[in-house]
Structure formats: C-alpha cells, structure tokens
C-alpha cells in the first residue's frame, strides 16, 4: 500500500467504526464494530510505522497530513491503547449491564443508548487523537486536540451521577481555558513565523516548514508563545498546577475511557508540546524552554507525592500517578541531550503499555466491591485470583521497579539529568519517585494481600480476564526484550524531539 493510502486508512477506519456503532441496533454489533475497527487500526499503525522507518517521513496532500517517527510512534501507541481498551470495554460494560448500572441513570437513558454513546464517541475520540499526530499544520493540530476534549466530555459524564457531571464540567472548562491559551500560543507562533515566511497560505503553519526557518523567528513572540503553549497543552496533559481536572475525571469516567485519557491523550498533549519545544529550541536555544520544563516537571512529580501517600481511592491514585509520569516525561525533555529525549520517548512508550493495565485492574476491583475506596478493599487476592496479582505486578511496573521496563526509561532520564549538570532536579526527582513508590506499593499491597475477607470468588468475564493477561504478558516481555523496529522508532522519535 502507498503511504497516502495508509495515512488515510488510519484516519478513516475509526470514523467508520464510530458511524457503524452509531447506526447499530444491538450491543453485539457495536462491540464488533469497535473491536474490528481498532484491530484494523492497529494493523494500519504498524504499516505506517514500517513505512516511516523505511522512508524517514511520509506526507500527503501537499504536506497537510504528514508522519515522521514521532507521529508514527504516537499513532502506534494510540492504536494499541484503543484496541486494549475496546477489548476490556466489552467485558466491563457487560458487567455494568448485569449490575443494572444503566437503569439507575437519573435521566433514564436506557442501556442501549448508553452503550451507543460509548461505542460511537470512543472511535471519534480516537480519530481526534490520530489527527493530532498526523496533522502537519499546527492550527489543525490545535483543532484536533480541542476535538479530543469535546468528544470525551460526554464519556466522562457517562454514568450521569451528580459527581460525574461535576467532573465533566471541570474537565470541559479547565480544558477549554487551557486550550484557549494554547491557541493564543499558536497564533503567536504564526505571527513570529509570518514575518519570515511572508506567506498567508496554509503552509505558514506547517510544522515541517516552520522547523526549517525557526532560527529567524521573532524571539519575543516565540518566548511568549512557548509559555502559553506549555500552560495550554500542559493543562491537557495534566501537568501541575493545571492538573486539577484529572483526579475527578479519572475517578468518574468509565474505566476504558479513563485508561485512554491516561495512556493516549497524555501522549497527544505531550506530542503538541514537543512540536513547539523543537521550534522554541531552534529559535531561542535550549536554555529557556528547558528551564520551564524542569520547573513544571518537578512541580508535577512533587505534587503527586503527598496525594499518593494519603490517597483514599484506588482510582484517584492512578490520576496522581499519571500526573507524576507526565512530569517525569517533560523532565526528560527538559534535561535535554540525547539521553533526555530518548528517556522521554521510552517512558512515553512504556507508560502507554503499563497504565491501561492498572486501570483495568482497578476497574475490576471496583466493579467487584462497588466502591473505589482503599479501606473497603482488603485481601482481594482471595476473591480475585487474576486481577489481584496483576494489580500488584502492574503497580511494581508503573513505579519503575526492575525488571520492568519503566525502570530503564527512568534510569535513562536520571542519567540525562546528571550528565547535563542538572544535579539538583535529578536528585530531587529520585527522592520524589522513591516516596511515590513506597506510598503506591503500600496502598496496593494492603489492597491485594492480607486475610481473606470472605467475599465470593469472582471469575471475571473472559474479555476482562484475557485483556488483563494479554497486557501483563506484553509488559513482562518488554521488561526483557524491546523489539528492534520499535526501538528504532523510539530512537527516531527522540531525534525528532531534539530537532534533528
């Protein structure tokens, strides 16, 4: 297949899956549309990655859509997370249906229309994420990032509880303000480039055009633009102190939606940030953006510490973990150098594989106990022989314990920090991460281990069970062996992030 066909297929497949689910009349058709759509999407993403590895970068429609290694990596991870979540979602929503969750909805929306909302909005949401990665034009990228927010608002208010509406409102408003800052940043970038390029065509905002001329941009405007972009896309990524929507959204959204927010949308927001980071480094040198990234990164990791230590809910703790990992990634970018960028990309990849698993485990426990509070959950291993141990394992993986792969990426980031003379932030980062490791592990160990509280043994549904076991295998394998082409792609993405 030609590269244009692959790019188009990548964007069209989720739209088609969404339309099919919207038209479907029963649950089975919707599930099938989503599963087959996302499976096909993953195939396309792999094909795209192969072509990018072979050709360096591909583009179509005069560079309106383009993919380099960074875009291909984000597309691949998005497709993977979407598929994993859609497999899990089948089991999750079937169990919700058995528990008669949908009938308790205040507005009485009914089961099928609730399910239709999920199965048709999710592909739309995935489409927006893919467009973020594939749009070459920074303005179109902004539109797509705003699109991810708009498509997911009703997914967060899915259960229609008072608390979920509250979470959706905060998500929409904080996201809206954040993105308006990002739009301002984009306008300023356009302005600072405008005088160099002297064009008013669409190409004036194409990243591939901007990046070759970035050295001559207006420096004052670019400085302001980067600050606004960092605040704006940082809000979307949930970087402290703009993270306040995150715990609410994660704890109220259905688990597959929250998993996608944490593992895929985070990547897209950081992707937007990286594109502007490259422009800013070319224009102003690495000093200015690095300092900002290190400050915000440390703030995020540091802020997560107390909230993880005293957390009461095992869903909200995942949000703070995600704030922490977002912080680690931008710290990696801020530390700079070959290892900083590589560490960030490795971390982004491993995080996308590990985070959904944690959400799935937490979702299983929550559906079993009908509560997301740690104090209600003890000795889960006795009643949930699959979810319990995997929950513990994925906690070890996400906190960066060897042999799991996140240890390698965190280690690479530390190395970048020390090598580039950021002694103080790197040391502080290690201290924070140790504290988070202790807090997280103590909480989850109490939840999983301990005396048998005598709950009935549940055999989680095959969909839920196998999505868990499958992902756990992926993480175990990644701990010891990173496939060659994937590593090549990650290295390519790191080179893009360094502006080469």
């Amino acid at each position: 297949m030609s590269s244009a066909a692959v790019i188009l297929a990548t964007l069209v497949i989720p739209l088609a899956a969404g339309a099919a689910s919207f038209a479907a009349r029963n649950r089975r058709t919707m599930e099938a549309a989503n599963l087959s759509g996302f499976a096909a999407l993953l195939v396309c993403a792999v094909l795209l990655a192969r072509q990018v590895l072979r050709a360096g970068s591909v583009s179509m429609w005069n560079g309106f859509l383009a993919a380099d290694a960074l875009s291909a990596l984000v597309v691949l991870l998005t497709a993977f997370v979407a598929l994993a979540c859609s497999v899990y979602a089948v089991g999750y929503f079937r169990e919700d249906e058995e528990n008669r969750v949908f009938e308790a909805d205040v507005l009485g929306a009914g089961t099928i229309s609730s399910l239709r909302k999920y199965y048709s909005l999710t592909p739309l949401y995935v489409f927006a994420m893919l467009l973020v990665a594939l749009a070459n034009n920074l303005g179109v990228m902004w539109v797509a990032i705003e699109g991810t927010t708009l498509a997911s608002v009703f997914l967060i208010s899915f259960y229609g509880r008072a608390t979920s509406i509250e979470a959706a409102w905060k998500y929409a408003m904080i996201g809206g303000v954040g993105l308006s800052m990002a739009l301002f940043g984009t306008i300023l970038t356009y302005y600072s480039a405008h005088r160099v390029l002297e064009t008013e065509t669409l190409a004036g905002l194409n990243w591939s055009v901007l990046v070759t001329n970035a050295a001559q941009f207006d420096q004052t405007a670019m400085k302001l633009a980067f600050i606004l972009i960092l605040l704006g896309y940082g809000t979307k990524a949930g970087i402290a102190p703009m993270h306040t929507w995150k715990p609410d959204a994660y704890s109220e959204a259905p688990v597959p939606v929250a998993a996608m927010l944490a593992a895929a949308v985070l990547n897209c927001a950081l992707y937007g940030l990286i594109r502007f980071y490259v422009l800013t480094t070319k224009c102003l040198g690495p000093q200015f953006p690095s300092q900002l990234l290190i400050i915000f990164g440390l703030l995020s990791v540091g802020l997560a510490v107390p909230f993880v230590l005293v957390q009461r809910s095992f869903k909200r703790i995942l949000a703070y973990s995600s704030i922490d990992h977002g912080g680690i990634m931008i710290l990696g970018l801020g530390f700079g150098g070959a290892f900083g960028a590589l560490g960030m990309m490795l971390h982004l990849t491993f995080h996308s594989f590990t985070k959904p698993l944690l959400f799935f485990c937490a979702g299983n426990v929550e559906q079993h106990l009908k509560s997301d509070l740690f104090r209600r959950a003890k000795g889960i291993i006795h009643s949930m022989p699959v979810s319990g141990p995997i929950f513990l394992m994925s906690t070890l993986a996400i906190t960066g314990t060897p042999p799991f792969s996140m240890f390698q990426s965190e280690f690479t980031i530390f190395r970048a920090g020390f090598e580039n003379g950021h002694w103080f932030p790197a040391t502080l980062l290690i201290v924070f991460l140790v504290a988070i490791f202790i807090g997280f592990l103590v909480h989850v160990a109490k939840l999983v281990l301990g005396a048998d509280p005598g709950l009935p043994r549940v055999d989680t549904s095959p969909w839920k069970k196998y999505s868990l076991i499958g992902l756990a295998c992926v993480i175990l394998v990644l701990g010891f062996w990173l496939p060659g082409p994937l590593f090549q792609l990650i290295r390519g993405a790191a080179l893009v992030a360094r502006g080469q």
Partner: protein
Amino acid sequence: MITLMAAFVLVLQIAMVGQRWLVTNIRVFAAQSFLLAGIANTIAYFNHAPHLYIAAFLTFTLKAVILPVVLERLVRRIDIGQEIAPLVNVPLSLLISGGLTTVGYVVAASFHRPEEATSAANVSVTNLGHNTLAVAVSLFLIGFYMMITRRKAIMQVLALLSLENGLFLAAISLTYGMPLIVELGIFFDLLVAVMVLGILVYRIQETFDSMDVSKLSRLRG
C-alpha cells in the same frame, strides 16, 4: 477606525464585567461579536485579505446571531434566576479589569518595534497599531478573570466565548487571521463546544437544581 472599534469592543467587555443581568450579558456579547466581525471586514477591505471576509461572516453568523440565540433559549428554558451574583462585587471587578487592561498594553508594547515600522512584512502590527493587540490581550485576560469569578455555569461559558473573541482579535490584528482551514476548524470547534457545554449546563441544572458551580465541590483529594 479599527482602533475605535477595538476600543468599543473593550468597553463592551468591561460592561460585561459590570453587568448584573444574564440576558443583557448575552446581548452585550452579541454586540461585541458584531463589532469584531466589523473589524475583520475592515481589515479585509483595507489590506486585501479576502479570506478574512469569510472569517468575518462566520463570526457574525455564529457568534453574533446563532450562539446568543441558543444561549438565550437555554436561559429561558431552564428559567434560572436572572441575576448573576458574582463572587467579587462590581466596583472591585471593574477596577481589576482596568488593571488587566494595563497589563494588556504592557504585553502589547513588547511587540512594538518602531525601527521596523517601514518593513513591509511588519505592516500588520504597525498599521493596525498595537492598540488592537493590547485590546485583544485585555479581552483575553478579562475573560479569564470573569471565568474565575462567575458562579453561574452559563456565565462561565460566556466568559470562555469572550476570551475566544480576544483570541480572534489577536489573530486578525497580528497576522490578518489564521489560514482559512484553521479558522474554519476553530469555528467548528467553538460551535460544538457551545453545544456540549449547553447540554452540560442543562444537566447541571437538572441534577443540582441550580447553576451555581460552587456547588460542584464533592470531588476532593
């Protein structure tokens, strides 16, 4: 001409801060958008930027007609108390808006380069005067301020929209607007955003029996 209109836009924004009635507020927003469309038209005419006509037309239909009508219907439908009840009282709010306007001018001043005034590429900023940019930045900041201090959900939506107006003004005064496709995308997003937020406002009203967003405080930690 443009500077004068921009000044009116700013006056309307401050009027919005001082306003106490919800429906009036929506109409002030409509008037502001109407003026903005006028500014876009003027710039399009004098600077031969034809794609700005489309942006001006969209601003007019969407922000000055459709959105205000939709919002007013929403207000009527849920029949909420008409008064706004801001967190900060009106005189203090006006004072703060004045302060934010000053900040806007300071920021805009950093873009002003008299030595480059003759260069052709820089024509937009110098000819339109950095007044317009200052107004744009002030609109953005005051919109931001309104979002923080308004308790009614629908007023927050309105504040977000007026903040967006500031961005539009910044875009047309700095660069004659963004490329057309981007502009269209932004308008599309705006329309969807207002629909989504409208439905959410409606559900907040249904669930909490109030539009006071300070009641949305059950999720903590």
